[in-house]
């Protein structure tokens, strides 16, 4: 479950970075991507951060 969620979250991060890379000087795109990435970060804090703790018992 965590792995599947993390995989999708990683995809979101990559997609946001891709849009940022090609938006050039379009502030409307750039600033909205910054906000989207802040939300993606919250998903990472909630889910992705514990992905590699599976072996801890």
């Amino acid at each position, binding site marked *: 479950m965590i792995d599947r969620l993390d995989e999708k979250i990683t995809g979101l991060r990559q997609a946001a970075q891709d849009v940022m890379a090609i938006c050039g000087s379009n502030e409307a795109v750039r600033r909205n991507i910054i*906000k989207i*990435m*802040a939300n993606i970060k*919250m998903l990472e804090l*909630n889910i992705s*951060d514990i992905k590699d703790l599976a072996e*801890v018992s």
Partner: protein
Amino acid sequence: MVHHVAPYWNPVLETLPRAKLRALQLKKFQRIFAWAYENSPFYRRLYQEAGLEPGDIKTFEDIRKVPQTDKGMLREVQSRPPFPYGDILAVPLAEVTAFRQTSGTTGMPVYQADTWQDWEWWAESWAYILYAQGYRNTDRVFMPFGYNIFVAFWAGHYGAEKLGCEVVPGGVLDTQARILKLQELKCTAFMATPTYVLGMADAARKMGIDPAKDLFIKRITCAGEPGASIVATKKRMEEAWGCRVFDHVGATEIGAWSYSCLHQQTDLHVNEAFFLVEIEDEKTGAIIEEPGIPGKMIITAFDRLGKPCIRFDSKDVICWSDVSCACGRTFRSIAGGVLGREDDITKVKGVLLAPTAIEDVVRSFAELSYEYEVVVTRKADIDDILLKVEINPGFEGQEERILSQLKDQLRVVTNLGYRVEVHPGGTLPRYGVKAKRFKDLRTKE
């Protein structure tokens, strides 16, 4: 339609087995340490002087070698560029999107910089708090506070929005208008300081409105003062409003780190997925892991990047609870909230006195109003404590009995004797934000 039925905002983190939670904390400390070292000149200087670099933090023992920070250091660094935060800043100034500041009651204000991501994190932290206290997307939440430069309930506003609540900003309205708006909109929850919660109830009654019967409030979240974790004050608020009252502790420089859940009365969970709370013995400097032993709090916010908060000595005195909460969260709890501030707990007549102990006694008397004031002076090397109280209507003529019982109770709880003055109802100062009821005038004489 109610989408969330689980008792946790995030069941993954909130029920993480302790060993994994501790592993997560270590990993996140390493990450914020490296971030600060690499991006904040202030932190890099601090750590280089201590001979530490990111690769050195491998265990919790290593964390204890990391130099602490305090409010004085945060003030001092503000004299360096970039204005007005100083070189503690770990992002370019252009990435700062929000300014707040501390109240400055203990000196020059500390200016707080947050990025957009930091504000999202504030709201996320509050989402954990509000969800644990029963807020859902069916709540209409009223915010009766001044939306200004102090962080106050700003993040509570955005946290409630994040849950899907309908948030009503009651910023510039006066107390009467706020009460009428609560009634008109049938609001189900609000957030305020304990002083203001009691003050609003008083004001409502004067308007002929009984908050417990004529309004629709189901839950209240307090912050800013310790009252919601003080038994007598919490009881007064719950009786006045006919609902549950919850506590939350946070700070401008730190974030929203602690909260009571539906199962707790005066204990507060620490959000250990977002914060590392260490309790340090003030005499030996050792870290206290056992419950019931008070010490000063050293706190780290793992995910605040604009102006990092790492091993910050908040001057708050706390202790771990030995109660395992029935809610199932694996986050540890602190007992009785914040017990006091290191600089509030003071020696009077040679006895250590915490102002919160006086509040607990005064507010346990139904015959007294919720307002009081304590003035400590020194005359000819002898400390004097004057307690000013108001007697509620209906108890006239019983002053002698009430004051005698009050003095007895204060002596039992605090081991100190008091002069008590009775003032007419409504004449002691009323406070809208942070109350200043304990006045130690000894250093000025």
